């Protein structure tokens, strides 16, 4: 029996072929990524179509390299969108699904084994592995999102007066034993932004960058940050632009 499981595991690892060299072979994110690849092709919703015609910014159906150039402005919605917002948009417009249903429970609670958004994000980000993080800053809305993201980064509020900047504007500091990224620098923003989605060992699931935004707000004693919201997207633009072409390393494995 053990041998059978081992064979299945080896089979799963080998089936991703080319990325096995770049990945830590022990990273369980691989299973989420495989699920995501299947979900992309699976007909769903009232329209019974897959997401294969979804435009992630590089044209309908182009997944390779798309994550590294998000968030970006989309003509069809007139908005700057991150991957998660764009996935919801495609599920609604292509598959005819209900946005509220999709966003009601986008991130796993502890003990759960992963959501559709988490699996799709993992697979899609993996298709940008090693590519430079280069979200466009051409459209006025993209520039405005960066400016807003910077303001949000320094915005202090709540019972503890915390802002993103409280923990993430200095280098070589830590909370307890957790080292903190300096998100105002290319090195710090690149390493942090490029590392998500990440398999979190302590939580047993893959966490997306949208989840990271929500969880930072929770730790700041602020209310619940919504998936694909203006503030969440603007903060991601701020980080991704600051990353200044640093390579995508996701999916990674974290504590």
């Amino acid at each position, binding site marked *: 029996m053990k041998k059978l499981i081992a064979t299945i595991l080896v089979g799963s690892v080998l089936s991703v072929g080319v990325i096995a060299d770049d990945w830590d072979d022990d990273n369980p994110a691989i299973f989420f990524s495989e699920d995501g690849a299947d979900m992309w092709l699976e007909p769903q919703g009232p329209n019974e179509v897959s997401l294969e015609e979804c435009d992630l910014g590089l044209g309908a159906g182009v997944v390779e390299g798309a994550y590294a150039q998000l968030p970006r402005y989309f003509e069809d919605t007139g908005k700057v969108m991150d991957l998660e917002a764009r996935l919801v948009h495609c599920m609604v417009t292509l598959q005819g699904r209900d946005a509220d249903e999709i966003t009601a429970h986008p991130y796993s609670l502890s003990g759960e084994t992963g959501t559709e958004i988490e699996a799709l994000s993992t697979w899609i980000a993996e298709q940008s592995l090693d590519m430079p993080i280069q979200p466009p800053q051409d459209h006025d809305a993209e520039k405005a999102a960066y400016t807003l993201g910077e303001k949000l980064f*320094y915005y202090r509020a709540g019972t503890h007066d915390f802002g993103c900047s409280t923990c993430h504007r200095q280098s070589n500091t830590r909370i307890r034993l957790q080292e903190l990224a300096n998100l105002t620098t290319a090195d710090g923003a690149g390493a942090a932004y490029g590392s998500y989605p990440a398999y979190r060992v302590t939580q047993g699931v893959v966490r997306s960058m949208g989840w990271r935004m929500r969880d930072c707000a929770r730790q700041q004693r602020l209310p619940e940050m919504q998936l694909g919201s203006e503030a969440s997207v603007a903060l991601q633009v701020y980080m991704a632009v600051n990353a200044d072409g640093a390579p995508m390393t996701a999916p990674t494995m974290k504590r």
Partner: protein
Amino acid sequence: MHKLLLSMVVLCLASLNVFADDSAYNALMNSMKAINGVGLDRIEQDEMQAACSNPQSMIADPEESERLRQSAMAAVKKPSDGVYLGDWKRGKEIAANGKGLQYSDDQNDPNGGNCYACHQLDPDEVAYGTLGPSLTNYGMRGQSQAVLDYTWSKLWNATAWVPCSHMPRFGHNGVLTEQQLKDIMALLLDPESPVNKH
């Protein structure tokens, strides 16, 4: 010439003030939902928070900075019974507890101080953060009234000493109760506290 200088100063101040508009507040109001006791009122800034929300983490105008510092100091409430020191053993638990006021926390549980997130205290606790200075052996300062007043006011509202301090205003914002603050005082100042035993 004076006029030119003046307009340059005005321009400078205006460029700093770009961080003080409503865009971040409005975006957060559009982007967040109230949940489990954490309401949208948390997004509203008080005067100190608004003045400190900039890349310099400073209040640009020194007079304004001093006015806010003094107003913070004036609002510090000293212990109602004049007793500053509680029980360091309870203080040790409060310092290690990172919970409180997050929507994931039980709103009926007492809040923690989470001191170890940023400070070294008991040297036997190796999982300490480095955003704040080490407080190991803080008690070597003794227990003079000046030390008691300084430490209490720093815990109550750190901006009474340093405007824009990154340390939460534990008393001012009601994060910790008066008794909890006394217990933290004891953790810092009691000679028997593990903070001071090495």
